[in-house]
Structures are given as C-alpha cells and as structure tokens.
C-alpha cells in the first residue's frame, strides 16, 4: 500500500501533552459551549434580528397598555416585560440544552466527551446569562428611547444585583427542567414550555400577585421570578437600596444555593436513568 503524507496518522499520543485537563481544561470546554452557541446565533443573524425586533415590539405593546395610567405603570410593565424576557432566555436555554443536542444529533458525542457534566451545564448556563443580558439590554435601550423614560430615581446598581442573583436561581430551575428532555425525547421539550407558562402565570410578571385567585397565590412563593420582579421594580421605580432589598436578595441567594446543587443532582440521577433505559440517542 502506497503511503501518502495525508494518510499518516496525526502526531502525538493520547491527549497529553496537547490536551488541557483539570480545571483549566474544564473551563475551556465550558467556554466552548458559550462559543458554540454564539457561532450558531451569528449564523442565524437574520433570525436573531427578526426575533429582537419582535421582542422590542412586544415590550412596547405591553408598556403602551399603561400609558393612560401614567409613567409609573409604564415602567412597571416595562420591567415585567424585560425581566420576563431575560429570565425566559436563561430558563429556556438551560432547559432545552439537552433537546438541542438531540436535534443536532450531537448528544452521544457530547455525553461521551471527557468533560464533567457540570461543565456542560454551566457552560450552557453562562451562555444563557450572557445572551439574556445582551437581548435584554437591546430591548431596554429601545423602550427607554421610545418612552423617554425618567430613570433618575432608579437604583440601577441594586436592580442589576438582583438580576445577577436571580440568574443563579433560574439556572437551578433550568437544570431541573433540562431533565425532562433527557427522560422523554418526545415529550420533554413540551413539558419545559408548560413549566415556563406556569412561571409566567404565578410570578406577577404584569400584575401584582394579589390579582391571582387565592388558591394560586401560595404557588408564587416558590417562584424565584416573584422576588426578582418585586425587587427590581422597587429598585427601578422607588430607588430601593441593596439594604432594603436584602431579605429578598437573601431568598434568591438561598434559592440558588438549593436549586443549583439540587438541579445538578436531579440531572445526574436522570442521566443514570437515561443510560439504563437507553435514552441517550439523537432525534431524527
């Protein structure tokens, strides 16, 4: 058999020394997911622009409902639209991460790769937070220009802090929801949409929790979005300080502290179940 340079096996042995392992390797692999998603979005640029246009218009139409009641209501509704957009992006990006791997046909390659499962999940989560921030900032800018909003009383630093802390709680929720497409290739993705719908209903996105029927109100206590919305509104509308927001910030922090490890534990258990049942396979 004639030898061809192109046919020669590539140089180097197994992984070392070319491969980075340990925490640096995991970090780079995690960043790989961020970069992967960025490249995917960049390729779908036209779709992204169209979606952003829709998000801006959606936020505007919601805010316009409050024009007759005055600027405070407009701001109240705007905060709801912005925050819901942000938290939805985080939740759905994390929750559908497994489903996307199935659709792209990469689930076996990704789950067979020598990375910690936490790297996959946190890489996806990091992307979700960054993506959510960028999208929300664009909508915020457009809405602020449209309504010439007066944010002079707002404590934007405190609002941002609430946003950051609540991101972690939503990542935890997303991790638990991500289990559903792992367990049920057919129905898992639908179930995550139902969870998202329930969160929208109970968290007081566009109305006060009091507007909910009494039997539904206790459910709002277990949604981190309830506290996020309440605190960001207090910071933006009334200029509440971090000290004043501390009780809810603590609640959100506790949510994150419980939900992320819990989400990971549930995911690990579900992965073991999927391995036992032979569910780690691509769709289509």
């Amino acid at each position, binding site marked *: *058999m004639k*030898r061809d340079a*192109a*046919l*020669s*096996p*590539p140089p*180097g*042995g*197994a*992984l070392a020394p*070319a*491969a*980075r*392992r340990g925490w640096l*390797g995991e970090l*780079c*692999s995690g*960043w*790989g997911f961020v*970069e*992967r998603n960025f*490249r*995917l979005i960049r*390729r*779908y640029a036209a779709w992204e622009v169209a979606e952003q246009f829709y998000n801006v218009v959606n936020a505007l139409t919601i805010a316009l409902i409050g024009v007759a009641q005055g600027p405070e209501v407009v701001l109240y509704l705007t905060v709801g639209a912005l925050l819901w957009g942000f938290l939805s992006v985080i939740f759905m990006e994390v929750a559908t991460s497994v489903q996307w791997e199935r659709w*792209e*046909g*990469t689930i*076996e*390659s*990704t*789950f*067979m*790769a*020598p*990375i*910690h499962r936490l790297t996959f999940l946190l890489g996806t989560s990091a992307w979700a937070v960054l993506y959510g921030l960028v999208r929300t900032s664009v909508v915020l800018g457009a809405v602020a220009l449209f309504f010439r909003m007066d944010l002079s009383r707002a404590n934007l630093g405190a609002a941002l802090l609430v946003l950051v802390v609540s991101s972690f709680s939503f990542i935890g929720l997303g991790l638990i929801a991500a289990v559903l497409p792992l367990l049920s290739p057919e129905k898992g993705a639908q179930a995550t949409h139902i969870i998202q719908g329930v969160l929208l209903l109970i968290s007081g996105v566009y109305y006060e929790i009091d507007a909910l029927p009494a039997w539904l109100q206790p459910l709002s206590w277990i949604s981190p979005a309830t506290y996020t919305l309440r605190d960001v509104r207090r910071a933006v509308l009334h200029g509440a300080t971090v000290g004043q927001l501390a009780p809810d910030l603590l609640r959100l922090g506790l949510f994150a502290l419980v939900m992320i490890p819990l989400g990971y534990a549930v995911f690990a258990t579900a992965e*073991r179940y999927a*391995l*036992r049942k*032979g569910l*780690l396979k*691509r769709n*289509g």
Partner: protein
Amino acid sequence: MADGHTAGPAIEARSLRRVFQERRRGRVVKEHVALDGIDLEVRPGECFGLLGANGAGKTTLIKILCTLLLPTSGEARVLGMDVQREPAAIRRRINMVSGGEHSGYGILTVRESLWLFSQLYGLSNAEAFQRIDRLLKMVDLDGSVRVNKLSTGMRQKMNFARGFLNEPDVLFLDEPTLGLDVQTARRLRSFVREWVEERRKTVLLTTHYMMEADEICDRVAIISGGRILACDTPANLKRGLRQERVVRLELAGGAVAEAAAGVTRGDAAGGAARGGTGGAADVLRRAVQDVPGVRRVTLSALDGRVSARVHVESDGVLVQLVSTIAELGFDLHGLEKQDPTLEDVFLALTGRRLDDEGGAVGR
C-alpha cells in the same frame, strides 16, 4: 487498574447482557434481548471486527463500551476500567464513529464543528486546528462547507475526522464506511489499519461488510441474536470451512429469466433459511439443496442471469449437481471452485446471509 495502564485486554466483556423493555402503563409488554451473555476479549493494538446483520447487537455492545448505555447484567471493561464505575476515565481514552450519524451543528462549517468537538477534549486551539486540517486532508473534505450542505458520504467523512480528534487509545467504529464511495472507504480502511499498527491503538469495528472485516481486522467475532457464535482470525474462521468445497455455477437458458426475476424479488435469495414460494428460483434452490452432499445454496441474479453458490461435501457431488441442473432445463455457463469467504462462515453459523436483514453483502 483505574489508570488504564493495563497489560490485560483493551476491551473485555463477561456475560454481558442487555435487555430492552417496552412498557405500557407501567407494565412490561415486550422484551428484546439485544445482548445475550457476550464474552469478549480484545487485545491492545488489535483491530477487532464484530460481524453481524442488522439487529444482531453490534451497536448495543458498542454503546455499552462507550459508556452511553448500561448493561442489564454482566461486566464490561475498557482499558481495564469498568464501564459502569469509571465512565469518566474511560471517556478520556476513547472515541466513536457511527455510520449514518447526522452529528454536527448544521449551520456551522465542518471546521467550526470539529473545533467545537475538540474543545470537549481539551485541545488547545493551535493543536486542534493542526489536527483538524490534517484529518480533513486525510478524509479529503473541505472544511469551509456547512454541515447541513454535506452529502451522506461527506458527513460520514466528518464523523470519521471527529473520531480521531483526541487520538483515542481505543476507537469504536460502528459501521464507519456506511454511505461512503468505494475509494474513500478503502482509503479510510487503510488509514485505520496503519493507525493501529503504528500507534498500537485498539479498534473495535462493527460492520456487515465482510470484505471490510476481512481486510483490516486481526480477529473477527460473528455475532447473531446477541450472541457471539465464533471468534478467530479471518483466516482461521475460513479454514474451519475448508473441509467443504464451494462452487459457483453460472446458469443460463431455460427458465433462467423467470428464476432471475424470482431471485431479484427475493423468492429464494435467502437460501436454505427461507421458505419457498413455488417460483422457478425456489424450484431451482430446492432441487439443488436436495442433491445428496449439498450443504447450502445461495442464489443471486445479475443482468438476467442466475448464479448459484453451492457448498458441497466433496468434489464427487458435482456430477449429480450438474445433472440436476440440466434436468431442470438450465444451461451451465460456467463452474468455478472458490475459497470460502467470511460470508460463507456467517452463513454456515447462522443459516442466513449477512444481508438478510437489509444489510449489504459486501463492497
């Protein structure tokens, strides 16, 4: 043994069993035994082939060894590490290429997709791009094409490149040349063979192309119904059939056109394992099968002609065989003695052809 530096087998399976259950309303309504007590040892530096028809259990076995599926019972080890207890350590040292796999981010280019996979293996950018370029050259694939624009064969080339990205110690190739043109398939086979020899890497290849197994595998196991029926070098497996004579008869004249059509329809292509339909092909097969000393017969048709591959106990059977064919009104256009192939081994062990369940006979 957790470090994987073992002098023992590169791959080992002991009484490995995998049962898939179909449940309805919490009750098991159907069970499918995909692996039924597999015992297997693959040595380091060996290219080992698993030859079997579709549904024989090849992919299930590979998925267990790749830590993507848990066995129902039994034990499997890769590089001395247990697939159930040490999956993370195994994943650092293995990779897999699946035939017909639609793996890759459709909207990205091949090069971008491969780069993303390289990140999962912790490769630095410089090393990753160097390897990707070499591998793309090896598989003769343009890295700037988007994955969703690739043909089946091109996609398979990309999968192949992905499998070598991390220079695995053990590579699992599950029908790796599925959908590839003959020239590329041959090129990749020679690459695998060279890679195994030069690097002392281990390859477990599943295929239903016997030529592929014959060409690159040091040893071959024949698997059917989740069981390994035989395991040896291709030469030894074929040698086991040497007490038989294999003759190929080219038939023409008489009812050959009708028989050829029947073979094409599948009336008798399955040979001894299939029930007849009463057509000319089936009459021919039954008549040949009934000649004393004939062990098996398979018919094939090409361009309106019929070819019969007949396994006989001795040369003495040929006289009666030729006379039977003449009595049926066929002209004997040619008679050739042949060496047994792996497909003959498969047929002898399983009673059916390798393509009986939809696979290809060979390339």
